[in-house]
């Protein structure tokens, strides 16, 4: 027992990197009981004291909605009160087309956006992976849309794509291509994809460009001397070396894309076959105020994201460790 404790203490000391624990010693050598402040900022407790605010926030802001949703997912009713219905909500959900259609659509949007962003991003990164005049200026300019509110950008695009007065349609008209009904129910979803891709391809471009710049030059030099074609070099050298970055981009973008809400509000508001998962939960909760069913949908969304979250977390930690080596 005593020995086990000692090991534990040594372990902690090893972690901190202190062989002889001066800080604790100095406190006890005062010859009196340490004050509350001294105890709290001692080696043993300080790391937990630092976490108190975070743990409080997590308890309130994570546990509360979670318990609320789980509890109400077994119940039925609105704001006035709910009654227990066991698994009925879940059974309804499994057969509910108005859930599965947005669900499939969300996956579709996520896939389309990520593939397009990666392709466009990779193309531009390859194009700009050399020294040219004003390269820093141009790379900085491309980053500009990234931090702008998605809602405002979607409003601007809605205006640009307006059938009669929108600039894009007027341009197409002048070029004799003809106006396009961008918000037609057949293509509205893809228009929204386009807006999202437009805002986020600079992200892929910049990440991949940073990756390309850090690749070892001599390997590519050797491949060139050996006379391998540029497509072969790209496939066998560039792509494998960039794959960790591609994984990170894919995971992070997935995380943002399954949460897509703002561009819908700025454009179609869920009409014309564009309703996505979060919009559907929003509508159930805040338009119909169907507390029970909304909670069930919310739990489902959470379930999907937790699986995804575990994947992302492992990749991020791995990348952080690799970057620190």
């Amino acid at each position: 027992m005593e020995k086990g404790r000692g090991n534990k203490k040594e372990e902690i000391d090893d972690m901190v990197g202190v062989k002889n624990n001066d800080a604790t010693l100095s406190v006890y050598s005062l010859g009196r009981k340490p004050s509350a402040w001294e105890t709290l900022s001692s080696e043993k407790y300080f790391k937990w004291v630092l976490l108190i605010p975070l743990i409080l926030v997590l308890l309130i802001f994570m546990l509360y909605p979670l318990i609320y949703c789980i509890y109400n997912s077994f119940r039925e009713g609105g704001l006035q009160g709910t009654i227990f219905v066991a698994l009925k909500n879940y059974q309804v959900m499994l057969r509910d087309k108005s859930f599965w259609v947005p669900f499939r659509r969300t996956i579709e949007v996520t896939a389309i956006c990520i593939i397009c962003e990666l392709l466009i991003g990779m193309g531009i990164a390859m194009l700009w992976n050399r020294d040219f005049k004003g390269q820093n200026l141009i790379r900085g300019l491309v980053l500009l849309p990234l931090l702008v509110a998605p809602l405002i950008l979607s409003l601007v695009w809605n205006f640009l794509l307006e059938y009669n007065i929108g600039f894009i349609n007027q341009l197409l008209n002048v070029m004799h291509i003809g106006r396009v009904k961008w918000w037609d129910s057949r293509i509205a979803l893809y228009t929204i994809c386009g807006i999202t891709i437009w805002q986020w391809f600079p992200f892929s471009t910049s990440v991949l460009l940073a990756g390309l710049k850090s690749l070892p030059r001599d390997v590519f030099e050797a491949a060139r001397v050996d006379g391998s074609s540029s497509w072969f070099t790209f496939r066998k050298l560039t792509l494998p070396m960039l794959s960790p970055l591609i994984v990170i981009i894919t995971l992070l973008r997935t995380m943002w894309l399954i949460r897509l809400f703002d561009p819908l509000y700025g454009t179609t508001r869920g009409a014309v076959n564009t309703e996505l998962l979060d919009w559907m939960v929003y509508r159930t909760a805040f338009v119909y105020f169907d507390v029970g069913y909304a909670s069930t949908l919310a739990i489902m969304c959470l379930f999907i994201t937790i699986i995804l979250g575990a994947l992302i977390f492992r990749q991020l930690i791995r990348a952080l460790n690799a970057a620190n080596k």
Partner: protein
Amino acid sequence: MKGKSIFKNIIFWIITAIILIIVLGPLLWIYLTAFKSADDIMTGQFIKQVVFAPTLDNFRRLFTAFPFFSSLLNTLITSIGSTILVMIVSLPAAYSFARWNTGGGHLLFTTISTRMFPGVVAALPFFILFQKIGLLDKHIGLILLFMYFNVSFATFLLYGFFRDVPVELEQAALIDGYGRFDIFRRIVLPLVLPGITTTAVFCLIWSWNEFLFAFLFTRNVARPLTVLISSFWGSIEVQYGPMAAGAAIGVLPTLIAAWFMQRYIIRGLTFGAVKG
């Protein structure tokens, strides 16, 4: 051979120019529209879309006919308030995670998973709670919600910055007789100041841009800028002019931040995994 490389160069610059036009065009359009008169906005004549007599009418209408300044103030209060709260929570936590790996990774994972927590999932429980305790349409309610969705991001980003601080430095300070708290305050914090600034600016921007919570939890009193701007797109009439003017002002801080934080944007957006 030489002719070919010049040709390649021209192609390169044409493609680069097209990329820039596509990226910057819509942003520029906000500012063009903001200075157009109502007639010029609604015109069907193509040439008038680009060549027009600039006017400040839209801004004048925005300032007088709509509660623009109070919305701007609301946005400022909620962004700054939530960022301060986030820092109080995240700074010590991130340091603890980075130095002692407190909780063996599980706690850090729990923290980051709040970021994956769908906003709409949390919205309903909080809406009902806030209704009961009277936090709807109050600044403090919005500040708390913004803190909630920024804390995980800030903690993780700061975690990366704290890990860059060499542990030897802290050992030296320990031997010199510094207490743990003094080491944190006097030695570690100044070293990660650039990281703290980056994180804080990101938190400010996320809160500045936030729409879902702002839209659901405010009516008149605490209504921030994004919600005001979205309200110009009514179901009956669209107020293009004031909308563009409002967007022009609302977007400006994020554009400036994007320009001056170039070096850190990628690091921030990838939670520190890619050091751009």
